[in-house]
Structures are given as C-alpha cells and as structure tokens.
C-alpha cells in the first residue's frame, strides 16, 4: 500500500512515481490525500480531497479509528515507542464525524483508509510540500509519524516514511551542515562533544549557538539586526512568501552578495555578484537524494568565461579574509567531510563510483550503506532510544477565510516547470503554458468570471492580475496557482509569510483571496477605471 499525502508525485517526482506505478501493477493499493484531484490522485484507488490545512484533523482521526477498531500494533508500540497513552488521549476527540466536518472528507473514506493502512502487510507513507508548507509544518509531519508508529509501518522493508525531497540536493545540503543547528553529519552545533572534533580539525572555536533559519533572517532584516546577506544558489526575491515585503527587506540591506549561475532577480539587487558554475554539469561533487543516496555529479561542460566553481570562490574568499584553505578538489573536500561525519565515513569517491551511490549511514569502507533507516526499532532489544509519539492538535491555516477574503488559494508545481522558473524557463516545452488562476468551473459561474478572463486577485498582502483557467479537478472554493512565472505573474505577492516556528517554512499552501472582475472596455470608456 502506498499513501501519497500532500504530494503530486506524478508531476513533481515523475520517476519515483514510475516505481509507484510498478507497485500498482503488482497489486499495491494507492491512496492519495490532497485538496486537488491531481494527476497522481487519478491513479489512486481512493482520493481523499481534504480542505487545505486540515491534515492533522485527518491524521488524528485515522489514528483514533485504528485504536478504536483494535488495529493498533500493540506489540510494536510497547516495544519500540513511548508516550502512547498521551497520544491516545489526544486523538480521542477526533471522531470520524468531527474529522468529516473539519476536513470535508467523508467519514467512510477516512475509516476505509485507517483500516487499509493498519491491515496492510507493507505500507509506504509519502509526503511532500502539501504537508510541510504550512505554519504548523513540523506538527503535520509528527502527525504522520504517529500513524507509522501506531501500525509499525516504519523501519521494515517496504514499510516506511518517505518525505519526497523537492530539489536534487536539499537532503545533502542539510547533511553537510547547511542548516542553522547542525554541523555536517547531523551533529548538533549546541552539543559540546559533537562540536569538538570539528573544532580540532578546523583549528577554530565554533559558536555554540544555532544560527538563524531563512524566515528568522528576514525577521532580523526587519528589526535591523541583520544587514548583510550572502546568498548562494537561491532566488529569495521571487521564492519568498509575501514577496513585496521580501523585496523591500532585501533592497534595504547594506550588503548583499549573490553567488549564482544566473543574474536572478535577487542578483539584480546585489552589491556584488559572484558568477558560479552549474554545479550539476560544470563541476565535480556529490548530491544526496530523497532516499539518502549520495551520488556523484560530474563535470561534462566547461563553464562560460568568468564563471567559477563554488569551492574555488569560497576558498578565494577565505584567502582574502586571511585564511589559507589551499585549492582543494571536490574529492579532497569530500574526504575532509568523511573524516568528520560518521554517516559518510565509508563513502569514498571510488566506492560511490563503483556502486552508483551509497545510502547513509555508511560508517566504514566495508559497510554496504543503509537503504533502510529505522530498522533499529525492530531489533531485539530495540537499538537506541524508543520512538516517541507526539501530541499534536489541529490548527487551521493562519490566513482565515472571511467575507472579504472568502476563497482558498493553494500553490504548487507543474510537471514541466520548476520553482521560480530560472532553470525551466530556458527550454521550449510544448507543455509550457503561462500562469493562471485555476478555479472550479462552478466557481466561475458563481463569481461571474469566464474561462480565460483576466481578473484581479487580492490577498491581505497584495494584488496581482492573472487569467482564470477552469479546472474541474479542483473542488469548489479552492483555487490553484504555481510560482513558476514570477517575472510575469508574481504569485508570491499573494502568499503569506506565516511560518512554522520550528522549520521556518512559510504557509505557501494556504492563502485567503478574493477575485475581482476587471473593468470591461465599456467601463473604461465611461471613465470607470479608478486609481
């Protein structure tokens, strides 16, 4: 059994979805939980079309039903988990009827999913940004983890939790320590013992405090505590929620350095731009995929004149700041990482080459890598700390629907495009079509807007104009836009920067909007255009 929760893998992870399709051909069942009846949902045995932001209500109701039906894996719970009683008490009020009211999913469908998941021999619970782009993203994830602990669908071959990563090295970036609270290899920066080997290897004192995540940085720009920013390979001027605010803050910096392969909108605001090579085809290195598989990237092309390898730029910068880091190759940098990270110690370049990648943890050169992560929960006795249940409560989106802003807008990706379009804007795909506000046809009739009509879309942050597109896969009251065409239609002017306190992720998935008709030619002729 496969559950895709808040994931349209058919379009966003197409080759992963081919594996799902193979499973379906072999008799697996697919449940898709998504506010939209996506192209993934069209392959599902059952589609649960929940209201945006009601995931915890649904997950807790599934948990309650599994417990009430006597389908919880009690042996696994008692051996490998803690805090079950607190969880049980927490989900008790989440009856099927309550969940149907809060989520819009029929009680019978919730019950069916709960029973199918609990009874499945093997079940994969996969999610994407539909779970994590919310103000309570971490709670959403914890609610799903609870379900896997309740049923024992974790750490066994064929059973697991599977967050599908949206970028080719977002996993690797975190693993290398490019997150505020970690050093490479998952070592906690606030843990003295974990920090020490790094301090010894690097001959420096590492500040024992976690840094700021992206949302905190923007907050610090607002309060004036942060006035210089060094951005590598990111385009926050277009990718941040509440874009006009983000632009104002970036423009107000004393110093903005942008290292990128393109002169992005962010780079256009920069004090200094450092032209970089395309990491995936103009330089050597590694990336880490969703399945924790480290693989080699290789240089196939010479970069354009003036563009330099990221490693070279950083080492040159260090030299100018008075530190001699030499001129290391990508492999030498990797070997330094291996000397400090237990996850990667066994992953030499020759092994990565010969084995087409290795899954971490891979602590030694004779270790085969770990395609399966949490199998310790099935060891006897359980290896390490048991896994805790978490108490999480339903908390609807921050941007409330009101009479003034009565319509839910959610955002996402399309098959042929990627994020702000910096990369995918460059190829001539017949699938490309420009941005639109996708609405259910019945809403078109209700709001008196035709298919293709350009309308004004207003949120509490700002307003943009975009053509309407009728899309029968949406439910009435739900609208959809991508953020692939920010140069033409800046969807992120509408989105809200309400962020999850732990992950710092903004609630891109839930904005409240209203749709206004533009004045027709007759109105304009009559001087009907206001300011």
């Amino acid at each position, binding site marked *: 059994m496969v559950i895709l929760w808040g994931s349209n893998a058919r379009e966003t992870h197409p080759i992963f979805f081919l594996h799902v399709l193979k499973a379906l051909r072999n008799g697996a069942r697919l449940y898709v939980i998504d506010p939209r009846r996506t192209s993934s949902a069209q392959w599902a045995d059952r589609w649960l079309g929940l209201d945006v932001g009601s995931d915890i209500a649904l997950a807790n109701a599934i948990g309650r039903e599994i417990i009430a039906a006597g389908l919880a894996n009690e042996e696994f719970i008692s051996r490998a988990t803690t805090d079950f009683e607190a969880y049980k008490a927490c989900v008790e009020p989440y009856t099927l009827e309550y969940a149907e009211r809060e989520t819009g999913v029929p009680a019978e469908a919730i019950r069916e999913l709960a029973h199918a998941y609990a009874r499945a021999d093997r079940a994969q619970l996969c999610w994407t940004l539909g779970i994590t782009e919310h103000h309570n993203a971490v709670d959403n994830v914890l609610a799903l983890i609870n379900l896997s602990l309740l049923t024992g669908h974790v750490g066994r071959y064929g059973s697991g939790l599977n967050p599908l990563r949206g970028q080719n090295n977002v996993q690797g970036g975190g693993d290398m320590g490019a997150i505020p609270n970690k050093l490479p290899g998952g070592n906690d920066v606030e843990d003295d013992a974990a920090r020490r080997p790094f301090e010894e290897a690097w001959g420096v004192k590492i500040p024992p405090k976690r840094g700021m995540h992206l949302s905190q940085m923007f907050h610090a720009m607002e309060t004036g505590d942060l006035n210089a920013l060094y951005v590598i390979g990111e385009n926050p001027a277009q990718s941040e929620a509440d874009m006009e605010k983000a632009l104002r803050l970036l423009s107000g910096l004393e110093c903005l350095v942008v290292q990128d392969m393109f002169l992005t909108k962010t780079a256009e605001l920069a004090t200094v731009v450092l032209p970089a090579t395309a990491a995936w085809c103009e330089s050597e290195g590694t990336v880490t995929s969703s399945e924790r598989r480290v693989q080699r990237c290789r240089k196939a*092309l010479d970069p354009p004149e003036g563009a330099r390898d990221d490693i070279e730029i950083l080492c040159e910068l260090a030299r100018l700041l008075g530190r001699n880091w030499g001129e290391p190759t990508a492999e030498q940098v990797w070997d330094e990482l291996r000397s400090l990270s237990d996850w990667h110690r066994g992953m030499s370049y020759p092994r990565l080459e010969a084995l087409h990648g290795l899954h971490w943890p891979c602590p030694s050169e004779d270790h085969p890598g770990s395609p399966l992560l949490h199998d310790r929960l099935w060891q006897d006795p359980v290896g390490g700390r048991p896994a805790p249940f978490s108490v999480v409560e339903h908390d609807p989106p921050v941007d409330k629907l009101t009479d003034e802003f009565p319509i839910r807008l959610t955002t996402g990706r399309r098959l042929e495009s990627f994020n702000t379009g910096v990369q995918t804007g460059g190829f001539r795909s017949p699938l490309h079509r420009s941005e639109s506000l996708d609405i259910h046809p019945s809403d078109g009739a209700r709001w008196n807007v035709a298919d293709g009509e350009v309308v004004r879309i207003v949120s509490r942050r700002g307003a943009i104009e975009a053509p309407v597109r009728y899309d029968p896969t949406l439910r009435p009251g739900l609208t959809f836009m991508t953020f692939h065409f920010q140069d033409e239609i800046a969807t992120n002017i509408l989105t809200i920067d309400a962020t999850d306190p732990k992950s710092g992720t903004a609630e891109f998935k839930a904005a409240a909007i209203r749709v206004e008709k533009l004045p027709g030619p007759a109105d304009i002729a009559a001087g009907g255009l206001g300011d």
Partner: protein
Amino acid sequence: MSVAPLRLVSRRTVELTIDGQSVRAPEGATILQAAQSVGIATPTLCYLETLTPVNACRVCVVEVEGSRVLVPACARKVEPNMVVHTNSARVRHSRRMVLELLASSVDLSYAPAEVQGYLAEYGAQPERYGQPAAAPDRDHAHAGHHTPVADGYAATVAQPVKVDNDLYVRDYARCILCYKCVEACGVDAQNTFAIAVAGRGFEARISTEFNHILPDSACVYCGNCIGVCPTGALMFKSEHDMRAAGAWDESRQTRTDTICPYCGVGCTLQLHVQDNRIVKVTSPQDNDVTSGHLCVKGRFGWQFVQNRGDGRGGGVAAP
C-alpha cells in the same frame, strides 16, 4: 527504490541444451538469457531488458527440437531437457529473410552498427526485392487496402519526418515497428498511453490518438520512447537538426554521467556533449533509479546551462 531484496529466494534451475552445450538456467529464465549466460549471442531488435517482450521482430528466433515453428528466444521460457539450436540453417534462413524484409522497407541508416552487423552476418540482400518505392500517404492508409507497388520496386514505409515540436521528432520511415516506444509510453514505464499501433499488416504504424500532432496528444515529453528506439526513428530535435546540417559527429562527443539538477529522486543523466554543448540526454538502462527512463525536465530541461549568454536563462520560453 530500495535495493535490498525482500528475501533471498532459492530458485530451482532447469537443465537444457543449447547448441550442444549443457546449460543450467533459473526456472522462469528465457532461452535468450540462458544462451547469454554461456556466451551465445542471439540478435535482437525489439527486445529490451527493461520492457516486456512483445515478439514483434522475430529476429531472435531459434529452433527448439519438437517444436513445429521457430520460437522467439526473448520470450520463450526455458523448459527441462529442451534442445535448442540458435544457429541452424533454418534459423539463419529465417533471420536473413526477416532482416531483408525490414531493410528493404525501412531506412536503417541510423540503426546502430550492431544491426548493420546482423545484415552482414546473415547475408541479407534487401536489394533483391527491388528499388525502394515511394510510399503513399501511410497516415491515412486503411486496414485491408494494401496497394501493391510496381514491378521492380520494394514496398517501403517511407514518409516525411514529423517535426511538430521543439523537443523531439518522429521519423517513421525509420520505424521497424518493434513496439518498444509503445511499451515505454504504456504499462512498462511511463503509463501515459499517448501512442499505439494503428492499422494492420503492412499498413501498421505508430500513431498518436487520431494521428494528432504531439502538442495536441496526450504526450508529456518524457522522451522515454526516444530512449528505447533502436533505429533513430525517434530522435532529439537537437540531434535531428545537427544531422540535417551535417554537424552531428559522435566521434567528437563525450558521454558523462551526472545527477539531474531538478527534484530529489536522484536520476542519473548521461550528458552527450559535442563542442562543449549538450546535444542529448539519456539515462543508463541498468540504473536502479531510472531503468533508463526520465521525465521532461531531466531529458530536455538542460537548455538553461547554454542560455547564459543573455545574462539570464529564466522567463517564459517562446511557444
């Protein structure tokens, strides 16, 4: 996508004889696999490890003692005490005729050297069927209405190349109807079902629904059909244009494996580079993430690295 086996199954083996050699093969293996395991090469055209055998091309046929007809090695499972001849006079005769019929009706000039080698090895003489005839409008041919060609001419599948988008072209004058593209577009990989076989007999051809142009079809431009095409009938437009201009030169090309710059699945891309420009992208068939299959972004979405002259690769592409 995990590589760990569910559990190790001890498989029973089957003993058979191939070309006088005693061979032990796992139960369920094909004659082709059993022959390959002892180094006996059998020609194939429509067979691909990653696809379900369709028995379309008949070039892999072998003789099985006790069997009235020749059997396709790519699909026929081994049986205990089977006696197989892969290179008998009957087999060679059949292969020669299959290759002659294909080569007399289809343009095989872009087929890999391996295929040219088959023609030589089996002494195929396609020219004995006559001059290649210009084909009528094959797209509108009806089943059961075959028009014979004039004496001295061989019927062909010739027709103009279909160029209806900027990503790939379909040159069905080069199509041997191996069905691989249909399978890759269908249940064996992509499950999009944009193409199927239309017509019957010599009028059979690969077609979108109602022969619509690709932009009006269900095609999602994953290019997995190009990835499996054995004769160059399906081709990157970049390769097609370079060949037309006489600029395509594989001897000047390098192939480098790297990882796709888009989502987190980690697909291996093999970049074919000529004169410091990417000219096409494939993925190795033995890769356990992709099995050779990619999506539209991985296969075609690399143009941005070569568009940096204008300072920025972003924005909306021209239609």
